């Protein structure tokens, strides 16, 4: 039997249990509020219907289990891994589990968000408690049936066994279990007894994906639904003056043309007709704010870095003094462009706004926030809203912003019809909420061969790094340390993009570290390890990373990559980075082929605590590394006159099959609480390849995308 760890969790978090009319049990659990119980929601017994619930485990008479996945699925794998955690503690065979995507349900869940790589981290405790509590109730029901103490019974793989060796299946006792009191102080398993956690599980939607079943937002259809193609301002800073829809309205399949704000929606009975009719709209635009360009942004951001108008996010010691007293100073500037998200599934959303209710369906990373904004926009009660989350054809941060859902709701409200707003690829790339262009200037003061001060300055468009970042490495390792930020307010919309800020900052800081080690004639790995020594045992609670865990991933990647046993013609770049609560170290292997540096392999060491689903975890890491390489090498969205200069994949280069390296991943094995993997493997990749390219060619990379620099001159030869 498993070693049970007492759970601290209150039974008040369990909000409903019920036997089902059709057999089986539903266990209602207030996921994520378990740790901070609040007043119980009133239970509406009449609503106890399988179809109405989200936060539940449903066990059928035959022992088959349905688990509702609470969080939105964008390809990060939580629709598989979160139910795995419940199933582990419930102790049922994984192949008896059917997973269903939960709807937005603010009564029963909190943090139904896909963002920040936090689903697993925040879900870990409540998901285990959900499964364990259900298991205990089933055991209690069996004990009552047998007339024995429940402590004499054990449960494993969906079967309850008593001291006499008699057995009952979960399905046999589920009806009785549903009527029992919700137990307090249920035990949780010892990690060494895990059967599901730590074992490979395939994507729960695998069969549907490979056979083309409707899963995604764009696959959603409703009787009478119209497709809306929206004409938006052609440049940031433009507003709609007038439009002529005579041609569009006369086109086949067009049902309506509706102006809202500075946009015009064409509603048609097919997507194609809607898109064609949108092209036939004739609009006049006027300027309402300056048209910005990349050249202008470059100037503004460099001026900010040269200036004195900074907001200081962290200052340790006296950086000014350290620089004044320095023998030598290294100062470098790193530059990055805007990036669109380019989800393979363009933005889209279905809305049917009626007097009775608002029905919303589509791909969204922030269902709750979006529902609230729509309620506010339409001056409606949020309780009128039913929001269903579809699987998402990628997110990368773009679907945190519900702009497309708000458009759908607004159009449906005006048209009094069910509509699906569909972005064309061109709409998707030009009406983006982009990763902003950012520049970093990093300087270090050196005295007597030691780093005495470190100063990081950020100049960004619209927003600056979030408050935790200044407490990442090397914070705490240097006596004199300062992080300053400044921003330029632009009319170009910007927002989160997979691993916000760190997706570029890691490249800048880790490239700088490598150059600093070179200047000091130190081994770059040893220099990091030496700095980490100073953070061990720190009492500074602001420090986010663990020096020990960073050391673990560094040692693991050094061992596995063969960094200490270099091969002729293979140039290796090392990088270690912490973000999103996960420590990652990467070594990129670059070779020269046809006079060009080619990334052949990336070795990755990861400490994300317990790995819930190794099969899914490896996919996230491979994807993150290759995404990081692709965007460092090729990603670039420039602006002229407020207009994005790329609007489709013919003018925007994404990494493809022929450009990918082999990715080899190793996990630090421990039993610490799990952390997320959607983002942390991406940030180190850009630095690892830049450092390897430098070794191979002698050229330092300071500006993304690297391809511009690599194409500019003969690097080798």
């Amino acid at each position: 039997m498993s070693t049970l760890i007492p759970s601290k969790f209150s039974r008040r978090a369990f909000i409903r249990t019920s036997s089902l009319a059709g057999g089986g049990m539903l266990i209602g659990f207030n996921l994520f509020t378990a740790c901070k119980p609040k007043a119980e929601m009133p239970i509406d017994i009449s609503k106890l219907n399988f179809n109405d619930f989200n936060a539940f485990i449903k066990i059928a008479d035959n022992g088959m289990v349905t688990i509702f996945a609470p969080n939105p699925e964008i390809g990060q794998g939580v629709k598989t891994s979160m139910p795995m955690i419940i199933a582990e503690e419930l102790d049922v065979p994984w192949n008896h589990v059917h997973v269903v995507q939960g709807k937005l349900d603010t009564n029963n869940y909190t943090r139904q968000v896909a963002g920040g790589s936090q689903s697993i981290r925040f879900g870990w405790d409540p998901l285990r408690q959900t499964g364990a509590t259900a298991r205990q109730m089933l055991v209690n029901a069996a004990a009552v049936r047998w007339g024995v103490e429940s402590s004499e019974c054990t449960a494993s793989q969906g079967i309850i066994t008593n001291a006499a060796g008699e057995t009952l299946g979960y399905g046999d006792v589920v009806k009785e279990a549903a009527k029992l009191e919700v137990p307090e102080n249920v035990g949780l398993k010892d990690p060494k007894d895990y059967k599901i956690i730590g074992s490979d599980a395939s994507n729960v939607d695998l069969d549907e994906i490979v056979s083309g079943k409707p899963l995604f937002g764009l696959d959603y259809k409703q009787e009478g639904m119209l497709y809306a193609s929206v004409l938006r301002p052609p440049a940031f800073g433009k507003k709609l003056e007038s439009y002529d829809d005579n041609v569009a309205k006369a086109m086949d399949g067009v049902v309506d043309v509706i102006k809202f704000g500075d946009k015009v929606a064409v509603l048609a009975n097919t997507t194609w007709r809607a898109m064609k009719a949108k092209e036939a709209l004739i609009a006049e635009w006027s300027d309402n704010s300056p048209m910005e360009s990349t050249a202008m942004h470059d100037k503004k951001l460099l001026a900010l870095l040269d200036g004195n108008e900074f907001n200081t996010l962290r200052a340790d010691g006296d950086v000014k003094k350290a620089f004044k007293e320095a023998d030598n100073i290294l100062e470098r500037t790193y530059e990055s462009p805007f990036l669109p998200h380019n989800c393979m599934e363009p933005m889209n959303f279905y809305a049917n706004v009626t007097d009775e209710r608002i029905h919303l369906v589509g791909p969204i990373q922030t269902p709750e926030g979006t529902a609230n904004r729509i309620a506010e926009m339409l001056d409606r009660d949020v309780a009128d809203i039913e929001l269903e989350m579809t699987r998402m054809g990628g997110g990368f941060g773009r679907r945190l912003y519900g702009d497309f859902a708000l458009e759908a709701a607004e159009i449906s409200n005006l048209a009094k019809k069910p509509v699906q707003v569909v972005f064309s690829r061109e709409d998707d790339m030009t009406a983006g909420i982009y990763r902003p262009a950012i520049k970093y200037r990093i300087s270090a003061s050196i005295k007597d061969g030691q780093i005495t001060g470190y100063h990081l300055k950020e100049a960004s468009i619209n927003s600056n790094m979030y408050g935790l970042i200044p407490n990442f490495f090397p914070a705490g390792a240097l006596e004199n340390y300062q992080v300053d930020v400044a921003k330029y307010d632009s009319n170009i919309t910007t927002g989160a993009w997979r691993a916000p800020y760190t997706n570029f900052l890691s490249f800048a800081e880790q490239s700088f570290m490598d150059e600093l080690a070179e200047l000091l004639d130190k081994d770059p790995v040893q220099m990091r390890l030496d700095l980490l020594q100073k953070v061990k045992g720190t009492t500074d609670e602001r420090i986010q990373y663990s020096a020990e865990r960073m050391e673990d991933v560094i040692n693991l990647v050094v061992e596995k990559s063969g960094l200490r046993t270099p091969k002729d013609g293979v140039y290796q770049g090392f990088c270690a980075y912490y973000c999103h609560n996960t420590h990652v170290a990467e070594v990129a292997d670059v070779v020269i082929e046809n006079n060009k540096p080619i990334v052949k392999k990336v070795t990755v060491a990861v400490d994300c605590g317990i790995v819930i689903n190794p099969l899914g975890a490896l996919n996230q890491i491979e994807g993150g590394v290759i995404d990081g390489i692709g965007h460092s090498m090729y990603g670039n969205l420039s602006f002229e006159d407020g207009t994005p200069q790329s609007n489709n994949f013919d003018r925007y280069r994404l990494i493809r099959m022929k450009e990918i390296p082999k990715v080899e991943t190793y996990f630090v094995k421990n039993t610490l609480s799990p952390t997320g993997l959607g983002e942390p493997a991406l940030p180190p990749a850009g630095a690892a390849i830049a450092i390897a390219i430098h070794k191979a060619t002698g050229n330092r990379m300071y500006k993304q995308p690297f391809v511009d620099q690599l194409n500019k001159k003969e690097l080798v030869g």
Partner: protein
Amino acid sequence: MINLEQRFLTFQFLSRNVIKLLTQFKTKMPTYNLKINGKSQSVDVSADTPLLWVLRDHLEMVGTKYSCGIGQCGACNVHVDGSAVQSCLLPVAQMEGKNVTTIEGLSEDGSHPVQEAWKEIDVPQCGYCQAGQIMTASAFLEKNPNPTSSEIKNAMNGNICRCASYSRINEAVAVAAKKMK
């Protein structure tokens, strides 16, 4: 700067004439007889409608995905007479008399060796591009049952996977090749 009102009036004049033209054409849609997944289907659509949208909106077969609309990403790939082609670029008028296979028709139950390989390797992350990847891979393996690693990479280079599940796609194509023997 040109007077906005003047420009607007010109547009209105032009558009009125275009409407006249369009109204003349706005008669009954032509009917096209298509053969999709071995089944005859007839659709009434305008001649310029791409096969992609005929499949998705008229026949409600949504396994074929829209992503770029200009033949750059391969998400909409289907088989036309056995070759993988981008359905976003194929006007329906050119489809008569051709055999079209979509992801829904690749096998009845997801048991085509390429689909089986995709499941065995657990390829997808978000999954959106995978139908197109599978259609490209299955047409390729029919023509080249013993591909080298670089032939696989060449064959799959036209399909973008934004999640970058490329290593697994590559591996799954190799596994599928073995299964098809």
